[in-house]
């Protein structure tokens, strides 16, 4: 069975094609992507992001088919991100999926973006039943599977961790190319002085907005006086934010009794986060599963993978139900494909 996946919920437009063989193996045939990059100090606005996606999507479809060396007729289902995400970009991509479904006469499968990340991570790493830390520009969730749902044990109660990193990068003028978080990570490697920041763990939930406000004032004050460097602040911010994430992940492991951890989402490609998590997981005698930027960061393949699993259990989204939704909880999805 061959599935094609369309993802465009934020500033990346990605198309992936994969095949589930008769033996149950998943083979990656194509995974292509374009990223909408804004000037330093600016975020991406929904309207402009949608324009970007519309400009690239058709060329990407051709590219994906060429890389995969398949014809549209060989495809079994067309998967697209139903949500959560920014409305205009989501809609621009869903429109293409719908149109191709009519032209190619193939069924549609609407996929929850978070479920895409989780299923992609499980497929690539082979993790069986891990505690999932899903960290990106829009999401911070600690997830465990139980009784047919991916249940959210902990999450950010205000802004997402990636959003906190991105906004800090903009405050200190770091470029958005290739990604603001990536540039924070590089600066952090050169940081020496640890600046104490607020620490916002609330049970298994976390809060980041206070930290952002605090570091903003530190940047305003101490940075100008030359008491700290941008590198120091990046370093301190990462150490603090990631310690919080590792802590709530560990708490979820202890609570659920699991020894595996899977990190997914764009922030999951941060090597320092992976190191810290590895250290905690090792101390508990468990295993860490992580992926690199090809699979961590939003991509079409993850939508194809989750969609293919859904399609195999008989789930198809009828054309009239292919609307998008900005708000779509991870635990809203009934996970028919797992025991």
């Amino acid at each position, binding site marked *: 069975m061959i599935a094609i996946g369309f993802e465009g*919920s*934020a500033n990346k437009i990605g198309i992936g094609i994969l095949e589930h063989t008769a033996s149950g193996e998943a083979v990656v045939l194509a995974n292509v992507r374009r990223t909408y990059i804004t000037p330093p100090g600016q975020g991406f606005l929904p309207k402009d992001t949608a324009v970007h996606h519309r400009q690239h999507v058709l060329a990407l479809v051709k590219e994906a088919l060429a890389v995969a060396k398949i014809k549209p007729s060989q495809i079994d289902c067309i998967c697209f991100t139903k949500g*959560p*995400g*920014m409305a205009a970009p989501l809609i621009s991509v869903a429109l293409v999926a719908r149109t191709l479904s009519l032209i190619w006469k193939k069924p549609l499968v609407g996929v929850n*973006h*978070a479920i895409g990340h989780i299923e992609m991570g499980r497929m690539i790493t082979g993790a069986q039943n891990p505690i999932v830390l899903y960290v*990106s*520009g*829009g*999401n911070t969730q600690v997830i*465990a599977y*139980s*009784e047919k*749902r991916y*249940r*959210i*044990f*902990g*999450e950010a*109660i*205000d802004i*997402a961790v*990636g*959003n906190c990193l991105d906004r800090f990068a903009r405050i200190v003028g770091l470029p958005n190319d290739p990604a603001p978080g990536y540039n924070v990570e590089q600066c952090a490697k050169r940081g020496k002085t*640890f600046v*104490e920041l607020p*620490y916002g*763990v*609330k*049970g*298994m*939930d976390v*809060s980041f907005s206070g930290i952002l406000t605090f570091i903003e004032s530190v940047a305003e004050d101490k940075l100008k006086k030359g008491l700290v460097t941008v590198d120091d602040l990046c370093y301190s911010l990462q*150490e*603090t934010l990631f*310690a919080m994430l*590792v*802590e709530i992940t*560990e*708490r979820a*492991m*202890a*609570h659920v009794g699991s020894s595996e951890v899977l990190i997914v*989402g*764009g922030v999951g490609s941060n090597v320092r986060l992976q*190191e*810290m*998590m590895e*250290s*905690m997981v090792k*101390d508990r005698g468990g295993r860490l599963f992580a992926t690199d930027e090809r699979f961590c960061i*939003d991509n079409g393949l993850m939508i194809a993978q989750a969609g293919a699993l859904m399609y195999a259990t008989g789930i198809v989204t009828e054309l009239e139900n292919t609307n998008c939704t*900005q*708000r*779509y*909880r991870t635990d809203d999805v009934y996970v028919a494909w797992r025991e």
Partner: protein
Amino acid sequence: MATVVPVKQGAEARLLDIDFGGRPAFAKQRFKKAYRHPVLDERLTARRVTQEARTMLRLRRAGIDAPALFLLDTANSIIYVERIEGDTVRDVLRGGVDDAQFEAIARAIGADLAKIHDMDLIHGDLTTSNMMLRHGTRKLVWIDFGLSYTSTLAEDKGVDLYVLERAIQSTHPNQAKAMVRHAGRAWRGTLLTPWNKFDGIIRQYTADSKNAQPVIRKFEEVRLRGRKRTAFG
């Protein structure tokens, strides 16, 4: 203090079964976290050890049941506390309780929590694993105060309630169904969602707390932030 038997290792502390001058006790030792920056680690551990001891004392003085504090060893990050003979509320709920039993537990939680918040104490880690029922009396005991702190803000109290609601929803997703079976009233199934069960706690809290209104308003605000916040990326 004589024999030392390790019992269990939590996320950040090790519990040792000990005998403290003839009384059954736990030695709870918080250990270093290698993944954390040493400055941050030291600060967090020191704060949590003292905060835990402080909160236990305050609660007991206010007549809310918590383990008795025997000794505080800040140098080694160990507290020596009474070993509670009982079951966690988590295990009790998972074991299956009938409507009346559940209602009684929910009311006890709501009543105590109102008192705790009225003292401007925030638990910080409210889960059903951090509440116990004593063997024999079946009275509610609160444990694990490492994340507790003092605050007068309705926001902090609202978040405390939100954390508890989330913990109940994620830990006991099928509790409602199990209860329906137990009570043999399948037709009431739709009423017995985890949310409605949590309602019992909130009802009692609202009735008892002197400051319920702004806290509940904040709680509802926080809940909207979590559940309906736009999420992408």
